[in-house]
């Protein structure tokens, strides 16, 4: 695994000692600088959450497994094998025997309990302990329905992740994607959705027409996507909670590559007409559209900046597909990429700091990121066919689809640093993932 244990031997080790001199009542502390470290996944113990009855303890065990899986996949944690645990039968209200956890080198311990309340609700309490300093560093309680235990587990993962990395979590989220089946010559592409850990996959369309480029709203549980039928190519809105869907109207030509604005009030998309492809923005309240590019080249894959003021897109106006940025009204177009190769599907990161893209060069495809001003390009992946990046809501992880020469497409993910490249937990053929915002 690329993540592995990356020994950080960076920079020269400088040790400085400050000396306190003088007649103070107590000598001042001596100073020691620590300028290196060993970057490795944090060893963490997540024993099964306890429960007062078989049902509760069953849920407690399941929750611990989901939390453990979430933390492990993030690449920042190394959950320890429960078989090695020394202390058993933990009690949420009794301080753990820390030496038992130090002995297996757990640096953090997640200790929880599941309870079915008299009113039927599920209550989950958990604490995170600093094993070496013997202190609680987090204590939270969630209440929900027992059926919702997986979401409770993901929320616990988010809380642990945030406490120990300082960044917002991304585990209580879903992925919408295109589920593929059938032979390549007669591919069925259905809109599908799953939890970010691959659980609860379900189809949203029946496969009687092709579905492409699903995109999540950043504000709520709404999707926009393109449906390709025998006689039309249209874009739709689909509210996941209500099941309601509607077309965004009829356009002369082929409409594709829709994407929401950050406030959910607009959708940008491309329209191909008479051999020319331009970008439009539709106001969802008034349903009026405005064309914002007019170049004779192909302008497509629009993606809004998080502040809604700019749109990044790709265009072949220079002769090959490159990435450009413009104001949301189409003014101030500026080219961001100049290197060899084709740059497509730019996606602005949720924090606004990076733009992810697909790059094709030398017969291979890559997922890459660059700063929002086009600088500091970094290639994160290389394969026969990688494409279609989507950001986790915390801007830390990118999911994309990878197709091998031998066969179908699968979902993969990679950390924005390029580490922790791995297949997504959903292992059936799939492409074009889109990450939801954190669920509410």
């Amino acid at each position, binding site marked *: 695994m690329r993540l592995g244990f990356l020994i*950080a031997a960076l920079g020269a080790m400088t040790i400085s000692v*400050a000396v306190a001199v003088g007649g103070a009542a107590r000598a001042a502390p001596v100073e020691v600088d620590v300028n290196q470290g060993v970057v490795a996944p944090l060893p963490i113990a997540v024993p099964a959450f306890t429960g007062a009855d078989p049902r509760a303890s069953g849920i407690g065990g399941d929750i611990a497994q989901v939390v453990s899986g979430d933390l492990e996949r993030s690449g920042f944690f190394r959950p320890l094998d429960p078989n090695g645990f020394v202390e058993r039968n933990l009690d949420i209200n009794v301080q753990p025997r820390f030496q038992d956890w130090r002995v297996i080198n757990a640096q953090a311990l997640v200790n929880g309990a599941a309870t079915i309340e008299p009113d039927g609700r599920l209550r989950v309490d958990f604490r995170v302990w600093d094993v070496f300093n*013997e202190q609680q560093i987090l204590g939270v309680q969630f209440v*929900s329905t027992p059926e919702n235990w997986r979401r409770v587990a993901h929320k616990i993962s988010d809380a642990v992740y945030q406490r120990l990395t*300082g960044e917002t979590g991304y585990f209580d989220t879903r992925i919408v994607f295109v589920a593929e089946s059938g032979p390549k010559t007669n591919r069925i592409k259905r809109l599908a959705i799953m939890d970010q850990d691959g659980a609860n996959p379900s189809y949203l369309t029946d496969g009687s027409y092709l579905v492409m480029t699903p995109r999540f709203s950043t504000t709520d549980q709404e999707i926009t996507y393109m449906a390709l039928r025998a006689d039309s190519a249209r874009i739709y809105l689909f509210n996941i909670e209500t099941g309601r869907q509607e077309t965004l109207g009829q356009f002369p030509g082929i409409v594709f590559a829709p994407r929401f604005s950050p406030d959910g009030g607009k959708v940008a998309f491309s329209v191909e007409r008479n051999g020319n492809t331009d970008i439009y923005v539709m106001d969802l309240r008034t349903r009026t559209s405005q064309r914002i590019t007019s170049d004779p080249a192909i302008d497509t894959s629009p993606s809004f900046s998080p502040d809604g003021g700019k749109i990044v897109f790709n265009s072949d106006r220079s002769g090959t597909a490159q990435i450009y940025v413009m104001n949301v009204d189409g003014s101030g177009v500026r080219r961001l990429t100049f290197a060899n190769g084709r740059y497509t599907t730019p996606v602005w990161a949720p924090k606004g700091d990076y733009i992810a893209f697909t790059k094709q060069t030398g017969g291979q495809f890559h997922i890459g990121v660059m700063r929002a001003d086009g600088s500091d390009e970094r290639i994160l992946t290389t394969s026969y066919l990688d494409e279609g990046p989507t950001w986790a809501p915390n801007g830390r992880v990118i999911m994309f689809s990878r197709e091998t020469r031998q066969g179908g497409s699968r979902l993969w993910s990679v950390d924005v640093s390029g580490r922790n490249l791995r297949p997504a937990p959903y292992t059936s053929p799939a492409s074009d993932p889109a990450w939801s915002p954190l669920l509410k």
Partner: protein
Amino acid sequence: MDRELRPALIGSAALHLSILVAGLIAWPHFGRPLTATTVPVKLVARGPTPDVRPAAQAPEPAEAQAPEPVEAAPPPEPEPAPAPPQPAPVPKPTPPKPAPEPKLDLDALAKKVPKAKPKPQPKLDLDALARQKPDPKAQARLDLDALASRLPRPASGRRGETRAEQAPQSRDAVGAAQGLTADEASLLASKLNRLWNPNCAAEGASGVQVRVNIRLTQTGALAASPRLIGGQPGDPVWQAAAQRALTAVARGAPYDELPPDRYQVWKDINFNFNGRQACGGR
């Protein structure tokens, strides 16, 4: 996406979609119904754990081996609070608080212990040590001006932020007679370098500085819990970094690699964890 949108593909799709019958309105909805139920979140507690009973088998404090005056006070144990398990839940999650640790007040304890630290003692001891161990290298590097410029500063031990800002420039004189020798400092730094797992991936981690103070018994055991000095307790990234620094320092105990006869020198140490250096380029 461009790939998918080639005219050839669209044509191919059109062929295969000839069986299309579904209308827009009668959109079939497969799979289990999707529900998005809100999960109410209640905060139980953060920081210290007044609602937790001590472990059945209380860990034996390592300090028990050789107590020094400061340790005469009861060991810093969590308060036994056999109160009902359910703490009053706070209705809404609040942003993480700095969670100040009302731990053992060493200063106060030190005052209570008579003659624990006669004023002139450190100076006398150190001078004597300096004479006993003439270190030509260290003395050659002794920068009196630099030392003098530090005179008024460290006594209070309350200048975390200032120190952090000035640290790289002002602490480059190694091995002065009264402080740690270069070997001692190297032992400590390399130990902590091995035990510290910096949070480089988090945004901003490269700029994070964490300062941890420890006080040691004569055996090198921790006389009290490591203590954070300064920092940005309101910043979650700093909080996470501080947690990792505290873990590294606790894992490093006991600090028994230091010569006992120099206890007066190393009994009080500040570790400065420099994320920018450690995470450079990551």
